């Protein structure tokens, strides 16, 4: 049992980290009332920038390369997400449409530039990715240490920390109160003197930043390079985590961890005595079936922020 946990938990953690970051971005955006189908595209942009930057500057930056890479990816994706903000906040575009366009645009730009710059459809592997480490002191704790703190990517713990920071921001600070108000009842927020478009811009840009981190963390911990198939569906899984987690940062984190856990279990299943004889197909679909069962069984109805997806146009109702 201990063995199983020891292999399931660290893998679940690295699988979940990119989803957590991105889902947190989704939470910010949707809490402010801007639906973000474009998470996938924001991750693509993050992965692309993270890899390209890493490849280009690893000679200069050495071991700091991956850290600087995710920061650059964060900044570029944040800037990229402004397109979504402009379309859906200022131009009153349908947010779903704009998000779909973000997805296509990011992939188009990423692969187009890869071909332009590298002359081929995929980059080389980076030689400064993130590596796992044992967390000092904590990893020496008996049992727990080896399960949770050995062979762990620090980015996974940063992701979890970010979830708590996001929770703090959203539920304890004026900024969070305003952001949530804007997503529930923008007109009320407006009459209270809150600048609705500004809040929504900030939220969307935050989602871009977090999506960028998510994508680059994926690329630098798992994929090692960038191509058209680096990010395929992770953004949608992050979106699912947002909804599964009921638009709550900790909920979204929990959902992302659940996905990671289920995926990890489905891979490890064949070496668990109990699951050994289960046909592979059932293990393969298990993560997805479990998600549906969890939703249908005990998570149930999730109420979206009331104004989610509705452009705010002053003076109309």
């Amino acid at each position, binding site marked *: 049992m201990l063995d199983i946990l020891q292999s399931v938990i660290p893998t679940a953690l690295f699988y979940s980290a990119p989803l957590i970051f991105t889902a947190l971005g989704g939470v910010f955006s949707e809490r402010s009332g801007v639906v973000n189908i474009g998470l996938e595209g924001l991750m693509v942009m993050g992965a692309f920038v993270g890899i390209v930057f890493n490849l280009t500057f690893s000679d200069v930056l050495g071991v700091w390369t991956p850290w600087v890479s995710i920061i650059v990816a964060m900044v570029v994706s944040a800037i990229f997400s402004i397109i979504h903000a402009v379309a859906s906040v200022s131009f009153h575009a349908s947010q779903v449409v704009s998000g779909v366009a973000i997805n296509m645009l990011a992939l188009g730009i990423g692969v187009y530039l890869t071909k332009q710059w590298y002359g081929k459809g995929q980059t080389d592997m980076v030689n400064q990715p993130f590596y796992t480490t044992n967390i000092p002191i904590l990893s020496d704790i008996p049992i727990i240490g080896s399960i949770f703190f050995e062979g762990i990517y620090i980015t996974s713990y940063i992701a979890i920390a970010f979830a708590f920071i996001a929770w703090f921001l959203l539920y304890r600070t*004026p900024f969070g*109160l*305003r952001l949530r*108000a804007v997503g529930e*009842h923008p007109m*009320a927020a407006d*009459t209270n003197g809150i600048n609705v478009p500004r809040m929504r811009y900030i939220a969307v840009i935050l989602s871009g930043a977090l999506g960028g981190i998510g994508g680059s963390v994926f690329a630098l911990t798992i994929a090692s390079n960038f191509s058209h198939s680096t990010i395929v569906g992770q953004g949608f899984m992050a979106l699912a985590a947002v909804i599964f987690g009921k638009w709550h940062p900790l909920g979204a984190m929990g959902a992302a961890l659940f996905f990671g856990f289920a995926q990890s279990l489905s891979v490890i299943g064949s070496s668990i005595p109990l699951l050994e004889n289960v046909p592979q197909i059932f293990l393969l679909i298990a993560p997805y079936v479990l998600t549906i069962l969890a939703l249908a069984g005990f998570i149930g109805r999730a109420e979206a922020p009331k104004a989610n997806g509705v452009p705010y146009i002053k*003076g109309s109702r």
Partner: protein
Amino acid sequence: MEYVIEMLNIRKEFPGIVANDNITVQLKKGEIHALLGENGAGKSTLMNVLFGLYQPEQGEIRVKGEKVNITNPNIANELGIGMVHQHFMLVEPFTVTQNIVLGSEPTKKSGVIDIERARKDIKEISDRYGLKVDPDAKISDISVGMQQRVEILKTLYRGAEVLIFDEPTAVLTPQEIHELMDIMRSLVKEGKSIILITHKLKEIMEVCDSCTVIRKGKGIGTTDTSTTNVNELASLMVGREVNFNTVKTESHPKETVLKIENLVVKDSRKVDLVKELNLEIRAGEIVGIAGVDGNGQSELIEAITGLTKSVSGKIELKSKNITNKTPRKVTESGIGHIPQDRHRFGLVLDYSIGENMVLQTYYKKPYSKAKVLNYKEILNKAEKLIQEYDVRTPSVHTPARALSGGNQQKAIIGREVDRSPDLLIAAQPTRGLDVGAIEFIHKKLIEERDKGKAILLVSFELDEIINVSDRIAVMFDGKIVAEVKPEETNEQELGLLMAGSKVKAGESNVTE
């Protein structure tokens, strides 16, 4: 002079319409000033201009004699102008405190919202003006009257000197209205000034010092309430004489149409809201249900119409059991329903007014055949109803959303009455409407009664209950606690009964 607010020659246009055409309003310090006008006259628009939600095309606003430019609500707040909106501007999942401090939150050094301080500040204000609220309650859990107090607290918390109330009483019960009046008086006593929009002339006469009348976007003039009367105000506003006393002949009730026995309804939290209720309505009579909001009226109606399942008891329509039938079955068996919340239930706002006219009948001939809609018939019908019920709309193709509240209501009434149901349930049918529209709707209800229909009227307006009903059932705590004749009662007595006291022996207490 000592005007705190002056709006001079304001003009505000919307695409295709001049909502405010050269209107002037002047508010003195420490007075309550009424704004009066028909639905769609431009009152809300004018106040939204003052509050910075709209920019006027023309005109000037002065605060304490100084010309100001109010481009957004923040500036209005800074100038000491606060507004209690017609549709509450409250964030439902938030608590009372969160709603009040939203946008100007007190913080600790760490940047965290200082809820303790907020609570203390709110308590201070609410004690001072007699606005009792539970600071930790969620908005979705408190009554409409309570929500309104939160709205008032919001403005006071921001240090408002001038308060704008846009139709605050439309959604309140008589008790709540009474309390609100007291609050307004105490506000004025503390040196605040108030602009009050209302369609209820009696309220104007009761609390206001002066009144500005607006008709079709134009300012008609300002009078002191001490020098005018209800009839004069009404004719100024509508442009003709208005008859307040609903003309109504004696009723001649015939066979029983609706019979409710021992009905029990629970809400989603499994609390009994209707408790062993009994009620009978006969053909050719209007039964009014008087009661304070939240005593089970809505649940009673929802149970009759099939929108909620009842736990036990029996509902019969013309001797046919309709208990727990689907809304479709209930409708087909002969019930019409003018719902209390017209935006939520009454209309599909994104459908055209024409499409809304067949909301319950679209699947029947001649509106459709073999599941194919016949738009010609539908539009013909809609045109006819629009004519007959004087629904003011540019065309049958206009989305229902774009109609004024009064016209939306007339459309619903037209639709429901036209189906000629044996029982017509009218819940708050005149809420938020101007006197002209109210007169029209009352006339229609009585006409239906005279055609031999049974009518169940639920209203918080005791005026309305007394004027329109043939029989009044008082509802309290999920039960009918008393039945009285309108000729034999008055508002005071009803008020007491509604509060649950069983004074006045001699009156018939039907239940139990």
